[in-house]
């Protein structure tokens, strides 16, 4: 079978054997492709620097027996700024891990690739206050593309007016009024401002989110809600998202551990 070209985003690398790597790729058409890059862990590898997670690359692939085989790679956008800042790096890992778990082999969702590239571009923005809102906007948009668009306009159960709703049902996927939604972890509280902010994140471009980040309190409220929403509906554990959410983006205080 002849080699064929593919533009893709590198989501994840897994070591294989002595010096090979398996890369999980999100193709431009929204497919997940898994490919072997031979000898990539050797310093003399021709494309080791291009196949790092977060890089958008043009590949030449050969069809193998079970996995594709990378025969050439050229970089399109390396998102190098994400590797020079700890918080951005952790946020990008969360985004890539969500994509790896949401996108399925054999199924295509063309919009995911565009969303992924726009998110990684936005994460390179200089304002660190924008990182959390960008990740939240990514989660809400990715879930919407996956068929779980949060319903924020009226009660998702009885369709009563939006002014009466104060909780978000993770199961029903939208805001609920006190009559329809019970209390508890499956229906966390969502403030009116939080609901408006979530709607704005859903409707805004990533560049807009990066340019005018949410207030920190609202940003945390929306992020916590979307994290719960993703955990409720995606049947696998997304470790990088947990890592990012649990404050791994913050190294310990300088004197921590010193006597």
């Amino acid at each position: 079978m002849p080699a064929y070209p593919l533009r893709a985003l590198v989501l994840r690398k897994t070591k294989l054997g002595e010096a090979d790597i398996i890369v999980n790729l999100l193709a431009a058409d929204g497919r997940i492709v898994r490919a072997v890059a031979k000898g990539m862990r050797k310093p003399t590898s021709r494309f080791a620097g291009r196949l790092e997670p977060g890089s958008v690359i043009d590949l030449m692939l050969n069809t193998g027996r079970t996995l594709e085989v990378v025969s050439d790679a050229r970089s399109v956008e390396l998102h190098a700024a994400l590797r020079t800042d700890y918080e951005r790096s952790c946020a990008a890992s969360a985004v890539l891990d969500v994509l790896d778990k949401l996108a399925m082999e054999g199924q295509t969702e063309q919009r995911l690739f565009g969303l992924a590239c726009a998110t990684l571009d936005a994460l390179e923005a200089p304002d660190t206050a924008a990182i959390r809102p960008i990740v939240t906007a990514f989660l809400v948009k990715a879930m919407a593309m996956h068929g779980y668009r949060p319903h924020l306009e009226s009660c998702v159960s009885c369709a009563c007016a939006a002014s009466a709703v104060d909780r978000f049902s993770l199961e029903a996927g939208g805001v609920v009024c006190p009559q329809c939604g019970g209390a508890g972890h499956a229906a966390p509280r969502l403030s009116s401002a939080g609901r408006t902010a979530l709607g704005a994140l859903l409707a805004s471009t990533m560049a807009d989110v990066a340019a005018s980040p949410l207030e920190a309190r609202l940003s945390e409220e929306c992020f916590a809600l979307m994290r719960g929403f993703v955990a409720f509906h995606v049947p696998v554990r997304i470790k990088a998202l947990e890592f990012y959410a649990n404050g791994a983006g913050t190294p310990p205080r300088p004197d921590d551990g010193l006597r």
Partner: protein
Amino acid sequence: MYYAAPIARLLEELERLPGVGPKSAQRIAYHILRSEAEGTARLAEALLEVKRVIHFCPRCFDFTEGDLCATCADPERDAATVCVVEEPRDVVAIERTGGYRGLYHVLGGVISPVDGVGPEQLRVRELLDHIAEGTVTEVVVATNTTVEGETTALYLARMLKPLGLKVTRIASGLPVGGDLEYADEVTLGRALEARREL
């Protein structure tokens, strides 16, 4: 059942080893069966001994036979410099250069959010304990130049710089003997960034 039970057991154990598939396991098993009994006994004894006597150095966490590893026990080594590496095998790689005279600290991995590995799963606290002894002035971060290695380096730099330590990162660039035209943009870009005056 193609094999006698003891051979099947040996094959099963050999296939657990990294990089050993069914064919390699079969080749090793038949080599053992054909070789002299003394050679096989030496191999078995070497395997048992390495598990019995080798342990982590309590200071740098490299493998050692004695109380401290040879590097930590050597008074000639520069105690002011600590090179942080991912795995014990990286110590061997750096020692082979013959150009480093400081001490080491083996983290035991790298921060990898997708695998759920955070700083608390690494020997970061032990590094802080070593630094707290007061002799260290420079920390050389020699983790791999992968995303995970860079993330770990950034984490360590953010944690250690406020302590007044000099935190350095090993340079990355072109391999010696490599052709410039085959270098990828990242490697070549870093080589240019870290250029030196002749």
